[in-house]
């Protein structure tokens, strides 16, 4: 499974959304279900899936589907965007 598939699966699982919704518009402000509890779940699953531990600043800055991809490159996790 590619990193993109893993990344998408996590979003789909946490937010119960279809893959088609995962784009530049998928942000903390635009997604109703994206609250602090969902955020913690998202971060936890990403850390587990990719075997990394995100820095506090990156956890706070992880504000969208696209932003998350750029943050993960800092941890040598390359995700090919949709």
């Amino acid at each position, binding site marked *: 499974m590619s990193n993109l598939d893993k990344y998408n699966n996590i979003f789909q699982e946490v937010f119960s959304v279809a893959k088609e919704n995962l784009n530049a518009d998928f*942000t*903390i*402000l635009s997604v109703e279900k*994206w*609250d*602090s*509890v969902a*955020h*913690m*779940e998202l971060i*936890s699953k990403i850390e587990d899936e990719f075997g990394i531990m995100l820095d*506090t*600043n990156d*956890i*706070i800055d992880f*504000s969208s589907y696209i932003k998350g991809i750029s943050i993960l490159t800092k941890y040598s996790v390359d995700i090919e965007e949709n």
Partner: protein
Amino acid sequence: MIIDNGSVILRAIEKTDLPFLQKMINDPGIEKMTVGGCFPVSFDRQERWFENYDQQKELRCMIQLKTGICIGCIMLTDIDWKNRTALLGEKTLASKEDRQENDTWDAMMGFLNYAFNELNLNCVYGTVLEYNYLSRKLALKCGLKEEGILRERIYKNGKFHNLIANSITKDDFIIAYAKYRKERF
């Protein structure tokens, strides 16, 4: 009286809460997302704050889940009894395992209900850092309206940042609370 709402109870701060409060105020993640002091706070200073804060001018509650775990605190400060306004603040520090769905929504709505329907306030307002999207979102979900941008009010991490000013009136709350009750219960 305690405020019992949904998954939480909001209760008075006890001396036994002081270590948790000190941990919150010293947490770098919370400091990044909130306005206010950034000096390290000693336990001694935390105790002196507790002994001296004016419970007539401020209302501060611990947010305790019904599981017994404290996840944060919520407060009204600058209470203006003549103009019936107050400044709202809220902080949360808890692990993913301890959090429950809608816990902070329950806390905010229970607290606002108390503010408007027991304290007879008319307008509760606040400020939030522009980049604190989660707090902004919770405030919007609770019926607060974003009124404007306070430009470059806060200096953090080598940069000046904007604040978002928000508020909720009693009339706004009536609508938001009806929606909350319908969705939540």
